[in-house]
């Protein structure tokens, strides 16, 4: 039997690279590379990631060693960003602090996203009372300002870096659940979901193999953007004394400690503040760029 199509084959571009997966990524990279702001964001994130990883090698001083005679020194050749009220090197503390901030930001986002994704997909896919229940709980959680909810959780669990991660992750859950639910509702109405149902696939297969990969774009974008706000929330918690405990170097804690010396030694607060700003801007720029690159509708 021979049904070789002739007309159709012409419609397919013959000069096509062998690997289709590579082709997909290529167009994504191209779009991303064109976006200067996104590149700048990616650069900032990369730099901070490297600084965090290699902090022990780069840091000029031990971040925890007191050097009381040298306290509150302005930036100098020995202490590039000056010293704090106990004479510790601010640059070293910021470098070590980036480890905590990045880990807290990324871990809490991953944790919150995982739970949020599962709740959102279940909610959107099954609908009915499951949906109503999950979404109403999310509404309640979202009714609190993020920092207030995190504060409440930390005050119940106790102040520590781990509990900050849990608290910040908790607030991520409803945000992710909502986004994922919306995307699931869109995707589950598409024909290929009907088609795979008509092939006899069970729900778990449909959810994880057919819905989840198709809603990854908004999840990735939201994750990147959420890391930024997670870093801010974590710093804020530390600033309020409900997060990472001193003497561990943490940006929020540094701000809190420098607060009393704003008038005499503003560098105690300016530098950690700037660093928080920079990282957050980096994640936000990169997240926005990702959104544009992953959205098939954005032409540029």
């Amino acid at each position: 039997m021979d049904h070789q199509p002739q007309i159709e084959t012409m419609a397919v571009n013959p000069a096509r690279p062998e690997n289709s997966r590579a082709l997909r990524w290529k167009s994504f990279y191209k779009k991303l590379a064109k976006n200067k702001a996104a590149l700048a964001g990616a650069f900032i994130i990369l730099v901070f990631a490297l600084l965090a990883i290699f902090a022990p090698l780069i840091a000029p001083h031990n971040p925890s060693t007191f050097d009381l005679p040298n306290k509150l020194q302005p930036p100098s050749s020995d202490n590039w960003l000056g010293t704090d009220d106990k004479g510790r090197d601010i640059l070293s503390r910021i470098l070590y602090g980036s480890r905590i901030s990045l880990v807290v930001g990324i871990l809490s986002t991953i944790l919150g996203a995982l739970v949020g994704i599962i709740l959102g997909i279940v909610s959107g896919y099954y609908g009915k009372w499951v949906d109503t229940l999950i979404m109403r709980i999310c509404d309640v959680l979202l009714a609190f300002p993020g920092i207030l909810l995190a504060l409440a959780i930390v005050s119940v669990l106790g102040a520590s870096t781990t509990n900050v991660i849990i608290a910040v992750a908790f607030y991520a859950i409803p945000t992710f659940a909502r986004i994922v639910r919306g995307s699931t509702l869109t995707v589950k109405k598409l024909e290929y979901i009907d088609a795979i149902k008509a092939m006899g696939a069970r729900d778990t297969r449909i959810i994880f193999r057919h819905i989840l990969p198709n809603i990854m774009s908004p999840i990735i974008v939201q994750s990147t953007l959420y890391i930024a706000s997670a870093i801010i929330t974590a710093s804020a918690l530390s600033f309020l004394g409900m997060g990472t405990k001193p003497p561990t170097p943490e940006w929020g804690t540094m701000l809190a400690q420098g607060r009393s010396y704003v008038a005499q030694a503003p560098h105690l607060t300016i530098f950690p503040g700037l660093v928080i700003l920079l990282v957050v801007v980096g994640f936000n720029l990169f997240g926005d760029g990702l959104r544009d690159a992953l959205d098939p509708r954005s032409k540029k």
Partner: protein
Amino acid sequence: MNLTKEDKILEVKNLCTSFFTDEGEVKAVDGVDLSIEKGKTLGIVGESGSGKSITSLSILRLLQEPAGRIKEGEVIFKGEDLVKKTKKQMREIRGNNISMIFQEPMTSLNPTLTCGEQIAESIRIHQKLNKKKAWAKAVDMLKLVGIPSPEKRAKQYPFELSGGMRQRVMIAISLACNPELLIADEPTTALDVTIQAQILELIKNLQKELGTSLMIITHDLGVVAEMCDKVAVMYCGKVVEYADVKTIFTNPKHPYTIGLLNSVPKHDEDVEGDLSIIPGSVPNPFHLPEGCRFAPRCPHAKEICLTKLPHLEETFDGDKVRCWIHSEEWEKQGKAVNAHE
């Protein structure tokens, strides 16, 4: 041809499917009777909203619940009622015994998986094959549906293929487990005319080769003439005429079928005037006419048509038609009520 019950692979009896909306109940399928013989092709024809797609979704129990629900009726497949099956039993039947091709090849493939992966997946849902063997079978299936260089195509994503190619992949997926019945819901509507012919030819050849029974849902009478053995014409959720494909074209009995046939443009006639159309439009599903649902648009309608719903009656040549014209009561009726000039 004398057919016993065993020859029927699928028999739909008095199927009623309704959608329950805020405005009320919509009887999308209202007492449909159909049957498909083994290895044969049944065409379901009707305009949009006549319930033809809902009929096919009801057979596979793929309705969007809880809005859409099978209210009553039986769907007998190989002697067993599908309406009574559990969800798990239905999953085992879908794809394995009955599978379905959808209208839109552009959207009925998952964009994040390669064509080969999608075919292999359908195989692995029902057969215990390892990944390698399933992949090999997927490549075989692509070859079977006439896709050139199948090894290469199997690694490509749907977006890299043309519409016709994708529909071939869909056919490969649906036939991967060698189902006894294939339901094709407007398989060629979204394709170019030249590709349509190729796809129909392919389905026809594969049907012959694999012995699959086929149910084609279409609004294209050309497809019906090309493919079908039997035809059911649907209007407003009811079968109005059920006949052999030849009879439908040579001796249509229901005024709606006649209207449909008349509205097809013909090549062999010099058409000076406008195409003939069926006056009026499909009635509002919330307020269906009391009598025959076609009566408000029917040129022959008489008093009885507006008040009493005709049954699907067998006529002298074994075809079934739902119209008062063919009943004894017709002569007793007065004048036609719809005066369409």
